[in-house]
């Protein structure tokens, strides 16, 4: 296998067992939830995985006899769930990712050391997260109210089940207090683009995300107003530009049936940071940073690369931290660069040149040239054709034109609260195929 050593974490789940980690082919921690799969079955997992990997048939579900392994990998740990039933596979994977999220929030990093350092809490968490293969409470903010790393705090009598655990509002506790009531809204749009080698845009879309940092007392009722075309169509208002969201996904807290009936986004927010919603917009986006690249490979001698980057957005805006990543053959050597702005750097372990431009104003055009030597004895291993990829951020701007029209905050104590909004557009999966 690609990474060293075969460490893995096995985590368990749904109908079955185990949580935990493998250290040198050993399970780090595991939990058998149902008792219907023999704990020893997990020993077959790593060999099976390696066998599939060698055959190039890697798959998230592996099976051996009547036992099925569903696994994900987090850094060098494998989280594996085993089952012998027709389990709900999507639930299993969602749950495994949830475990990663919860452990990460508890221990900062999910890795072998953090599991061992906290194995008592890990067992406690595994007990609360799932029962008999049914996921239970997985909200780490709520879990932290009654499962803490300082065991001493847990003396009997002091710890009670927070009522939140079983409430309909299972994501926010009562009695939260802030001196100053504020909510920060981040609207972040990521642009996904796939451009063919001949320069035509094969597919493009925008994935937006609205994140909240809520610092509000009590149990506030919030209503978020966007310039959503469907909403404006329903209410018959038309105030300027509206946006058509192809698909919207909401945090647990948003009342989905309400949104379904009248497009109102109403909710009681979780405390602190959370992703309130995400949306997808299908409109054809002009790639904000356009790349033209010419990569010429002269076998046994050299590679010459010319890349032109053009900012196809408003002159008033500026893209920050732009990175253009251009693939080079794995056996290239002695790099030489020339750039009209920014810096180019060869990253041999990733077989690419990274051209960094700290500040890229709209409408401008920049150039980078690179020259590499090639060995006279050719690498006979066939190499893929990785695309050029681009990273950037453009603040104060959303490509789709989505806007927060209002955020209404009502709490029974009647306090005044301030909403703050920030917009940013960034690159998502931004790929331009090359000829070589």
């Amino acid at each position, binding site marked *: 296998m690609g990474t060293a050593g075969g460490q893995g974490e096995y985590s368990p789940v749904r109908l079955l067992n185990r949580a935990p980690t493998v250290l040198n082919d050993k399970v780090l921690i595991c939990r058998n939830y149902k008792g219907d799969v023999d704990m020893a079955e997990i020993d077959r997992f790593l060999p099976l995985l390696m066998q599939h990997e060698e055959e190039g048939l890697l798959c998230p579900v592996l099976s051996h006899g009547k036992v099925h392994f569903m696994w994900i990998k987090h850094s060098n740990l494998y989280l594996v769930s085993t089952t012998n039933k027709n389990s709900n596979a999507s639930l299993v*994977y969602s749950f495994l990712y949830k475990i990663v999220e919860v452990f990460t929030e508890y221990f900062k990093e999910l890795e072998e050391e953090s599991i061992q350092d906290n194995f008592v809490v890990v067992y406690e968490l595994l*007990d609360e997260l799932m029962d008999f293969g049914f996921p239970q409470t997985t909200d780490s903010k709520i879990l932290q109210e*009654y499962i803490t790393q300082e065991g001493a705090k847990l003396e009997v009598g002091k710890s009670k089940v927070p009522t939140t655990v079983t409430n309909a509002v299972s994501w926010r506790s009562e009695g939260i207090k802030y001196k100053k009531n504020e909510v920060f809204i981040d609207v972040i749009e990521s642009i996904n683009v796939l451009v063919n080698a001949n320069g035509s845009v094969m597919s493009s879309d925008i994935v937006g995300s609205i994140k909240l940092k809520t610092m509000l007392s009590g149990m506030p009722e919030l209503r978020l107003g966007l310039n959503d075309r469907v909403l404006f169509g329903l209410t018959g208002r038309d105030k300027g530009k509206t946006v058509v969201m*192809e698909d919207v996904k909401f945090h647990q807290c948003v009342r*989905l049936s309400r949104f379904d009936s009248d497009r109102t986004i109403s909710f009681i927010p979780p405390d602190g940071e959370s992703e309130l919603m995400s949306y997808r917009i299908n409109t054809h986006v002009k790639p904000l940073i356009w790349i033209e690249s010419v990569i010429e490979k002269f076998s046994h001698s050299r590679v010459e690369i010319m890349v032109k980057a053009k900012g196809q957005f408003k002159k008033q805006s500026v893209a920050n931290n732009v990175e253009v990543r251009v693939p080079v053959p794995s056996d290239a050597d002695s790099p030489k660069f020339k750039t009209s702005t920014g810096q180019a750097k060869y990253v041999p372990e990733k077989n690419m040149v990274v051209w960094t431009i700290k500040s890229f104003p709209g409408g401008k055009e920049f150039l980078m040239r690179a020259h590499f030597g090639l060995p006279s004895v050719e690498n006979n291993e066939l190499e893929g*054709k990785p695309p050029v990829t681009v990273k950037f951020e453009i603040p104060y701007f959303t490509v789709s034109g989505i806007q927060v029209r209002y955020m209404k905050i009502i709490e029974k104590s009647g306090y005044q609260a301030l909403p703050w909004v920030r917009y940013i557009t960034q690159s998502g999966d931004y790929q331009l195929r090359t000829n070589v």
Partner: protein
Amino acid sequence: MTDSKYFTTTKKGEIFELKAELNSDKKEKKKEAVKKVIASMTVGKDVSALFPDVVNCMQTDNLELKKLVYLYLMNYAKSQPDMAIMAVNTFVKDCEDPNPLIRALAVRTMGCIRVDKITEYLCEPLRKCLKDEDPYVRKTAAVCVAKLHDINAQLVEDQGFLDTLKDLISDSNPMVVANAVAALSEIAESHPNSNLLDLNPQTINKLLTALNECTEWGQIFILDCLANYTPRDDRESQSICERVTPRLSHANSAVVLSAVKVLMKFMEMLPKDLDYYGTLLKKLAPPLVTLLSAEPELQYVALRNINLIVQRRPEILKHEMKVFFVKYNDPIYVKLEKLDIMIRLASQANIAQVLAELKEYATEVDVDFVRKAVRAIGRCAIKVEQSAERCVSTLLDLIQTKVNYVVQEAIVVIKDIFRKYPNKYESVIATLCENLDSLDEPEARAAMIWIVGEYAERIDNADELLESFLEGFHDESTQVQLQLLTAIVKLFLKKPTETQELVQQVLSLATQDSDNPDLRDRGYIYWRLLSTDPVAAKEVVLAEKPLISEETDLIEPTLLEELICHIGTLASVYHKPPSAFVEGSRGVQHKRLPGSAGSVESPDPGAAATETPPAVIPSQGDLLGDLLNLDLTPTTTTGPPPPTTSGMQMGAMDLLSGGLDSLVGLLHQGPPSLSASPSTTTASFGGLDDLFDLGGGVGMPMGALNPPKAVWLPAMKAKGLEISGVFVRRAGVIQMEMTLTNKAMSVMTDFAIQFNRNSFGLAPAGPLQILTPLSPNQSIEPLNNLQVAVKNNIDVFYFSCQYPISMLFVEDGKMERQVFLATWKDIPNDNESQFQIKDCHLNSDAASNKLQSSNIFTIAKRTVEGQDMLYQSMKLTNGIWVLAELRVQAGNPNYTISLKCRAPEVSQCVFQNYEAVLKN
């Protein structure tokens, strides 16, 4: 200091030391010791010897310590059953603790101790916890019932826990409801016929309400449970769909997929012309597309499911081709699945784009992916005729790359293209021949040899080419040997003069030097054919080949329907029914989609409103009640049934409960029609909807065209009640028409009728899937036997009658051509049965017309050697497809019929029906 220090002690005598520490007086030391024990357990050391010492630490007021001890117990109780009893007292005590966390912890752990001996001690604590005031304890206790059931099902039933669990579905707390649903579903899965999840409109409503309030996981349990429900009619179906669609906006992919499952299933019941049906289709596409932005493993599950959805309802994603374009950094399993879906969505409208993409992929480096991309180009050519030429030239470009596996894959698909479009692209043969030497894979070699043999007359050096393969004949794989044998024989038949020697050589290699029986047999057949009748040989070997189907890898329709019912689960990922990979699931029913819209009629709302439901109608009767949609309203108001009735009905139920379960519902006949005179009163019952047409009411005149009725129940056997009847199929509705005659001396009232469970369930409207076809104990009887019970104020009478199976052939039984081909191939040969129909003097067209009138549809006709082969399909009301090949030889009054069906038991009936129709 972190807990990792506990992992470091590995000295000898460790167990002994731990024992001492566990028995220490100091609390802190005890706790440390337990932590060390758990740490050892975690790394896989056997610390079971410390069992009594650890259990001694159980009675503590330190919650953390208690949790650790419980954890230890769960791990080792099974290996120390006798000592595990020591823990019982503490469990019982902890279940009474004032702190709900401890009560829940105790009840949660209890269920995980899989020791039979102690389970019964746990019943009382569990009973209390199920009624606990704290929802956290109740939700934990609900799951505990499922755990206990897994250990000792009988105990759980005897203790009445299942009823308590059912009551929790009405709990005020959403999490308790969700866990109760999960536990019940889990238990029901192992007891498919227990009717545990007694889903009715009231419970469904409760579940839908809880859906809005519970956690994401609870929503999944509820949605998965809802998917097992079959709505009574399209209106109910629509109203459930309307309440489920908001879940498509949930951030959790698993919630979305479970909602998709419910919608895909219930959509079956909606009439296609309904506006809402179109709305729903439109609502499904965006969330399915968004699933592709999830984590790769979830993308994979989504793609496997989209593959099913695209086959069942291609219209949903037909405009979404672009989202399936492969990204460079997609994991290989995602790439391969995307490719598969791209081919399924390929159409004339998007073929140019698709081809450009496929060409791009074919130059990647991942071998499996590249191969599949090349193959995909070939499939596009076959699927979209207009693109064939472009596909072929793309394939030729790829052959020019000389990348070995690309060339081989291309040749394999070009062979298929030749078969699909004969005499169109043979000009490329020369290019193919240039690459002959580079072919080292059997499939590619066989394909190339096939091409050379098939087009031998246009390839000047065909003999040389084939001869070159012959040198290493014995080293070739069987596939190549067989192909080579056939190709050389073809060549000989086409160019006999130059190739005699060659054919001799191959025949002797195949027959004399080979120990492969298939090869030898084929060799001998050719040899004899060639030596006895070269004309016949030509007809056999050079016969026109059937065209290959456009779509490959289509999942057989019945399986596809089942998989749609399992969206999101492992079955949908494997594309296999759960019975194929889950142990002990063999007896479990296969899920089916509910009957399609159109054949479902909703009960007359007017009648429903005035209905006073007679107490005798058992609620589980909805199973069949739904199915038959019986109108249970008395035709006149008769007041409450006379007291005597209930006794009778109880009797009937008892009797029926043996093998005659599933009551259909009762039909009350008002007295006026039958009480008039003790002499002969005739009432005819039509069946409402599928079986009965009560609509016409009493005394409905009989249609003149009806076949004659037969006496089903003679008066002698039924205390004066005579029943005669007949089955007819009119306008897509099966009707059972009966005449009831009172030959007794007294008045008969309070009529009711029930059907026993029968093989075909008879109606697509209801929960057909409950009545799996052909349970074993029924096989002695003709499948089309129907057991009926009729009751009046005197007694309950049973009789049985046979209905012609053609009643069950539905009007939309015409299968798509390519589906037919795929299905025919897919059904194992063991399921094929052959029959002779003698003395039939119709020609094939007349036969075809005649059969069509009983909903047996001819899909294709082929004539070979004056023999007409008719390919036919019919579909039974319960969704079983029967495929037939009818061979009619001009001048020969004997037909041969081959039937293929997933449920081969029906073949005999179907054959009899053919006979009856054709000879009638």
